[in-house]
C-alpha cells in the first residue's frame, strides 16, 4: 500500500517538518495547487493561512482511498478545517474497502 500526502508546503518546508509525523509517506509539495485543482479540492471559502504563506489558496482537508486501477473507493472531505478525518473512521474505511480486495 502506498501513502501520499499533498500540501501547499514547499519541498524544503516538508523536509524540515516531516519528522513530526513519523510517517513513511511520500509527502508532496503542491504550492501552486495543481494537484489540488486536478482533484477539485481547492477551498473556495475564506483563505485562512498566515499572510506569509505563499499559496493563493488551500486544499480542503481530505482523505481518499484509491484502488489498484486508480478509482476512488472512499473519500472524506472536511466541511470545516478544524474537523479532520477521524483516524478511526479512516481505519474503518480501510478495513471495509481494502480487506475485500485480493492482491
Amino acid at each position, binding site marked *: *500500500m*502506498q*501513502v*501520499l*500526502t*499533498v*500540501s*501547499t*508546503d514547499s*519541498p524544503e*518546508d*516538508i*523536509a524540515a517538518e*516531516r519528522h*513530526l509525523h513519523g510517517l513513511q509517506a511520500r*509527502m*508532496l*509539495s503542491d504550492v501552486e495547487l*495543481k*494537484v489540488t*485543482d*486536478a*482533484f*477539485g*479540492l481547492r*477551498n*473556495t*471559502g*475564506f483563505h*485562512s*493561512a*498566515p499572510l506569509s*504563506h505563499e*499559496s493563493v489558496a*488551500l*486544499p*480542503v*482537508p*481530505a*482523505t*481518499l*482511498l*484509491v484502488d*489498484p*486501477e*486508480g*478509482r*476512488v*473507493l*472512499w473519500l472524506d*472531505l472536511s*466541511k*470545516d*478545517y*478544524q*474537523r*479532520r*478525518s477521524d483516524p478511526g473512521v479512516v481505519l474503518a474505511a*480501510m478495513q471495509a474497502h481494502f480487506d475485500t*480486495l485480493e492482491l
Partner: protein
Amino acid sequence: MKAGTKLGLVACFLAMGTAALWFYLTRQVSLPDDRTLFAIVLLAAAGLGVLAYIKGTGLVGGVPPAAAIVIGLFLPFTMSVSEQTVEADRVIAVGDRVPRFSARDAAGEIFDSDTLHGHLVLIKFFRAHW
C-alpha cells in the same frame, strides 16, 4: 494589587486554559463539531479582560488581560471562518478515476502518479505546516 489586575489574571487563565484544551483536542483529532461552549468561554474571557481594564490595572497588570482579549477573540474568529467549500461540479467523487498528476516531494524529486498503478493508495490532502 489594583482591582483590575486580579480580574485580568482570571481572564488570562481562563483564555489560556481553554486554548490549551482546544489545541490538545485538535492534536487528538477530537475537537467537537459543536464548539459553541468554547466560543462562549473564550468570549467571556475576552470580556473579563476588557472589564479588567475598566476597573484599572497597572502597567505589568495590563499584560494578562491583553492576552485574554487576543486569545479570547482570535479562536472564535477562526471558528467563524473555518467552513470549507469546494466547487461541487469539480470535486472528485467515489468511483471517479484519479487524475494523473506529478509533484515534487520533500527531496525535490518529481513524483508521477503513474507509479501508483497496481497499488492500494491512501492520499491525504492537508493545508500546510505552520
